[in-house]
Every structure is written in structure tokens, then in C-alpha cells.
């Protein structure tokens, strides 16, 4: 996977994607149209599909790779390392846990499946073919709140809180995403009516728990895996920013020596390594054990490692790190976009605290 990404998504491709989004944003002022900047390369997406990125955990008999969550977190770590854009988690989960044409299309890398965890913003909705919604299980009433508010309801989702919808027509308002490579929409307060999904899939939107497309979709499992795979992306980014900081500290000279010879800089880098190793251990352990508490721990530590390592990397880069041209800001911004919202973070902490009383 590292080789595939190095060959097909080198730094030049990352920067080209950033520039493409930038031109749309600053050029026509039309960035608010659903569809957004074309940050996801569909050809690369299919190559990822062929390489088994999405079908990794499907049995070989079903055209999958037959591997498990521990291997999945490794490939997600690689994707996070190079800041690969796209709805990676949603598409992987759709391929793994749904059935029908959308699942098949996701597995092959033919379809992009965005992941919505209301009320958090949804990434890549404009480019996506379908949206996998993980709402609060059991909620039946639609709220009347503003987009993005806590009152957002999921009544159409039925008892399980899981739904699959066509991406176009999914009520959401585009915002100017802080991450140039993750277009964002705030979800609306109503869900779309059931209708045929586009993208050539030709299936009805699936919502009720009884729907065969969602029959295997356990909402608790989906949420846990979404958290863990996102944490793996964060670990990849934290590892990359450490490597960037170390490389820069070795090369950049001030006062007649590499800045990495100064203890103040060394200690920043050492702190980054400790954060990275703790988060990586947490993610690998949770992937092996499948444990909910370990997953919560992994999410907390990985979010922290990604955002704090990116900041420390900026500090090591100094003024150069503050420029658009350096990649540091892309890691900072991605870490913010991927980080669990305040509500989720609190829930993870409360879960872990509650476990102590057992």
C-alpha cells in the first residue's frame, strides 16, 4: 500500500489537488455548488479498490482480500501518512458491512460513500455517490434544529440508527472547509425521502433495520470501526509530521549548526515520538482486541497525537511552516477535520471513566 501510494499519490499529486481546490475556491466564487472541488481522483480510487483497500476485510470467496481489522488499520495509517483525500472510512465500511450494489461498488472503488455522523460535518458529500448515516440508535423523531445542531434528528433511520442515502439531494449546506482537501457540508435537520440511489447503483435508499442492504450493519460496531479507522488515519499523519520535523531539524542550520542539535528542538521531537508510539500502540491494540474501551482510548490518543504533532512540526519548521507552500498546514487542518467532535470525545472519556467503576 505504501508503494502504491508513493507511486500514485506522491507529494506532487497532493499539491496538485490542493491547487485545484484553491483555483475553484478563489477563481469563480462558485465553490458553494454541490460537487465541490474535484479533490478525489476517481482513477486512483478505482486503483485503491483493485488493490483491496476497500474490500480488504471481505472473504476471498466474495472477491475480498480476507484480512482483518489489524491489517485495515495498517493501510489506513499509510493513507493518513500521505493525507490521501476521499471518504475512505465510509467507503471501506460500506464495502465491509453492507450488501447489494452500493457495497459492491464501494468494494471495487467504483463508488464513493461518504460517512455522516450527525451533527458533525460530512466530508466529500459533493463528490460522493451515497451517504452512510450513523445516527443515534433508537431515535424516531425528527428534530427541528438548524443544520449542524444537536437537535438534528434521524427519524427516517429507524430503530438501528443506520441509513444509506443518495448523496445528491441529501440535505446539507456546504461550508468553506478548513481542510482544502476535505470539502465539508453541515447536515440538515431532515433526511431525504427514500428514492433510487444514483451513481449507477440503482438501489433504493435503505433506512429501516429490516432492509436487507443494512441487515449486517450493527450500528455499535460501525461506530467503533469508524472511530478506529479514523484514529489510524490520525496516527499516519502524526508519524509523517514527526518524520518531517526530524528531517528539517537535521538539515536546517542556524547559529552554525543543525537546529536539531539544540535540546529545545530535540525535546519537541522526542515528545512527538512518545505521542506517536502511545497512539500507535493504542490503535494496534484496539484493532487486535476489538474492544470498545480500547477503541475509545485509541481515538483520544490518536486525535491528540495528530493535532499536537502537527503543531510541534510547525514549531520546528518555524516561519517556513506557516506558509501555504509547506505541507505542515495540511496535516494540522486534516487532524482538526478528522478529530472527534466535543460530544464524541466526552463520550469516550465518560465511557472509559465508567469502566473504572466496574
Amino acid at each position, binding site marked *: 500500500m505504501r508503494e502504491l501510494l508513493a507511486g500514485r499519490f506522491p507529494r506532487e499529486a497532493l499539491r496538485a489537488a490542493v491547487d485545484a481546490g484553491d483555483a475553484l475556491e478563489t477563481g469563480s466564487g462558485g465553490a458553494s455548488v454541490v460537487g465541490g472541488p474535484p479533490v478525489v481522483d476517481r482513477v486512483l480510487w478505482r486503483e485503491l479498490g483493485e488493490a483491496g483497500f476497500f474490500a480488504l476485510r471481505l472473504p476471498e470467496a466474495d472477491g475480498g482480500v480476507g484480512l482483518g481489522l489489524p491489517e485495515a488499520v495498517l493501510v489506513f495509517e499509510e493513507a493518513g501518512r500521505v493525507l490521501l483525500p476521499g471518504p475512505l472510512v465510509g467507503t471501506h465500511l460500506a464495502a465491509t458491512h453492507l450488501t447489494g450494489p452500493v457495497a459492491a461498488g464501494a468494494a471495487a472503488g467504483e463508488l464513493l460513500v461518504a460517512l455522516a455522523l450527525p451533527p458533525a460535518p460530512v466530508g466529500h458529500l459533493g463528490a460522493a455517490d451515497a451517504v452512510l448515516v450513523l445516527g443515534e440508535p433508537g431515535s424516531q423523531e425528527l428534530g427541528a434544529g438548524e443544520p449542524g445542531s444537536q437537535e438534528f434528528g434521524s427519524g427516517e433511520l429507524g430503530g438501528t440508527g443506520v441509513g444509506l442515502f443518495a448523496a445528491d439531494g441529501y440535505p446539507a449546506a456546504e461550508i468553506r472547509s478548513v481542510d482544502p482537501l476535505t470539502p465539508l457540508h453541515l447536515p440538515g435537520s431532515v433526511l431525504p425521502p427514500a428514492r433510487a440511489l444514483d451513481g449507477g447503483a440503482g438501489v433504493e435508499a435503505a433506512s429501516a433495520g429490516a432492509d436487507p442492504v443494512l441487515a449486517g450493519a450493527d450500528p455499535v460496531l460501525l461506530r467503533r470501526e469508524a472511530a478506529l479507522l479514523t484514529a489510524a488515519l490520525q496516527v499516519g499523519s502524526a508519524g509523517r509530521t514527526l518524520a518531517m520535523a526530524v528531517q528539517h531539524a537535521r538539515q536546517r542550520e542556524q547559529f552554525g549548526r543543525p537546529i536539531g542539535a539544540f535540546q529545545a528542538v530535540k525535546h519537541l521531537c*522526542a515528545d512527538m515520538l512518545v505521542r506517536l508510539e502511545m497512539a500507535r500502540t493504542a490503535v*494496534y491494540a484496539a484493532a487486535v482486541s476489538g474492544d470498545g474501551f480500547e477503541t475509545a*482510548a485509541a481515538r483520544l490518543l490518536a486525535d491528540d497525537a495528530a493535532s499536537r504533532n502537527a503543531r510541534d512540526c510547525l514549531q520546528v519548521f518555524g516561519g517556513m511552516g506557516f506558509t501555504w507552500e509547506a505541507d505542515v498546514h495540511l496535516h494540522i487542518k486534516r487532524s482538526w477535520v478528522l478529530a472527534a467532535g466535543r460530544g464524541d470525545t466526552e463520550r469516550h472519556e465518560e465511557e472509559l*471513566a465508567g469502566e*473504572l467503576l466496574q
Partner: protein
Amino acid sequence: MDLTYTAEQEEFRAGLRSWLGDVLPKLPPRPDPRDWPGRRAYDAGWQRMLYDAGYAGLHWPVDAGGRGATPVQHLIFLEETEKAGAPYVGANFVGLLHAGPTIAAEGTDEQRRRWLPPVLRGDEVWCQGFSEPGAGSDLASLRTRAVRDGDAYVVTGSKIWTSHAEVADWCELLVRTDPQAPKHRGISWLAMPMDAPGVTVRPLRTLAGSTEFAEMFLDEVRVPVENRVGEENDGWRVTMVTLSFERGTAFVGEVVACRRVLGEVARAAKANGSWDDPALRRGLGRLAAEFSVLWRLTQWNVSEAERSLRAGGTGVPGTGGSVFKLRYSHARQELYDTAAEVLGPLAQDTGHPWTAERLSSLSYTIAAGTSQIQKNIVAERILGLPKG
């Protein structure tokens, strides 16, 4: 990452558990923490029970009288003894974990026969004379001199942070035998009898009020040349062999204990109402995450050491040790700071065990390599940054 145990390892665990269940109720009451002779006798008694049951020197090589256990078996031993509330290694720490393994690795047959069996039986206690008032983080700059006089070295200088010095029979001592050589190349390793004329021990009171440590003054102490382990001036390398014996298991018992204390703190918070404070609860949740990962990191480091041994390597953990120590030493301090929040006014009573632990936790970011030295090691040896 291999987190599963083999059937053989589980069998070892079960046998150990059952033995602990039998013997722990028969232990005498624990002595007062200030009663050093009483503590020595208690620790010696426990070591003798381990010896009689075949658990003494578990991780020592078989030809040194040990069981040649793998790092994972050692981890299981430390985990189970801590969980069962068994006594800590105590006065036998240096003998079992530093001096003994050094002699096993570098000593002559005669030295091994003389010194190793009494350590395993709990008959003789060792202490460590490494640090000096002027040689802390920069240990290799130590100045205690040893001058050859016939069949003995005459040793003069002072040592500090010597645990169990009052009750020890032997001291593993680092001395400078060649003042002209570069600092790492002029050091020798000696086994010094603590009852030799010229040895003065003065207890050193810590900020926690206890006398865990002592200063040791050496005034022309005669140490037989035959007590030197390794070649003259090769003591630095000999010592590093000792330190590398830890194999990532150094803090196993402590992490198990911290996780237990964290649960006790949460239950105390629930009982006294401080649990209703969401900030405190969330802080406890964060600590639960940190300690669960520190436990996994320990398991990982130990299984890496075992894999290295199987592949014919040294079994010395790579980068994991420094990374672990950096995070663990701070997490332990955060744990007892949080315990103090839960205790409220009682946190000011040093009679409360959590308050005593809070005070002693302050040494964790200093002892065995300060956090700053650890960061230098991590930055230079793991990340490859240039030396300052």
C-alpha cells in the same frame, strides 16, 4: 502485535496463581516502613519462599541458577504477583535485577559460585554504588578513586542514592581506576563488602520523609582485586550489560498497581461525590486510556524482546523502553495528582497512602534517567538528531 498467550504460558500462569493462593495467607505481617532490619528480614523470607518453590531468579540463565524464563513468562510472573498482592522484591532488588545478572554475565565461575546462590536464596543483600554527588545524569564522570595496592584496591570517594545501604552485605561499586583515560574507559566494577573498614553510611531523608536512600562515604576502603568483575577499566561496558537485562519488564508490577489504584480512585470519587464533577470524571477517563495503553506498550515491548531472543538476538528491548518511561513517569504523577483532587482535604494528610505515593511519584521523572536525559536519548539514538 501479538497480545495472546500460548497454552504453555497460560499453564505457567495458572500454576503460579495457585501457588500464590496457597502461600500468601501464610506470610507474616508487613513490618513498619521505617524498620529497615525488619524489612530486610521480611523481604528475605519472601525470597526464600520463591526459592523453595522454584521461582527465584526466574529470568536468570539456567547456568547461573535461574529458570531461564522468557521475557513473557517474567511479565506474567510480575503481573500475577502484583495482582495477588504479593510482596515487592524490596531489599533484593539490586541483587536480583542488577548485580546478580552482571555477575552471571561477566563474572568468573568462582565469582558466580560465591555470589549468586545467596542472592537467589535471599541470604545476602546487595546495594548499588553508582551515582555520586557530582555524577548524576553524567554518570561516567564519577570520581570515586580506586588505587591498586598489592592484591587490593584502595577506594576513596562518596556515593549517593544508595537504596538499602544500611542493611546490605555487598555493594556493586563503580570506581575510577584510570584517571587519565577518557571518562568511559577508566572505570571498573567492584563487589565491595559493606562491613569493610572505612565504609560509612548516612541515611538520606527524601522529601517524602522516608529514608529510602543513603549517602555512602568511602575512606581508603580495601577491596580485594579478586572482587573485580570484568577487566580493569572495562567497568562501564560491564555495567551496561546489567542495565540491558531489564528487557522491558522493569515497570510491569507498577503499571498493574497503577491501574488498580485508578479504579480505587474512581470508586472513592463515586463514594464522596466528587464523581459528579464532569471535569474530574473525564480526567479519570483520560488516565484510564493512558494506563491501558501503557500496559499494552509493556506487553508489546516484552513480546518484542522475546521475539528478538528467539531470533538469536540480545533480547534487549529497542526503542520502547525510553518511550515507555517518558510517558509512564508523568502519567504516574498525574494519577496521584488526580487522587489528591478526589481526596480533597485528606490529600494534605501524609498518613494517607495516596499522599505518600503522590510525594514519592515526584522522583519518577528524575530517577533512572531524568525525562530530559531520556528525551536526549530518544532524539539522538532513535530519531538520529545530532548531538548537541
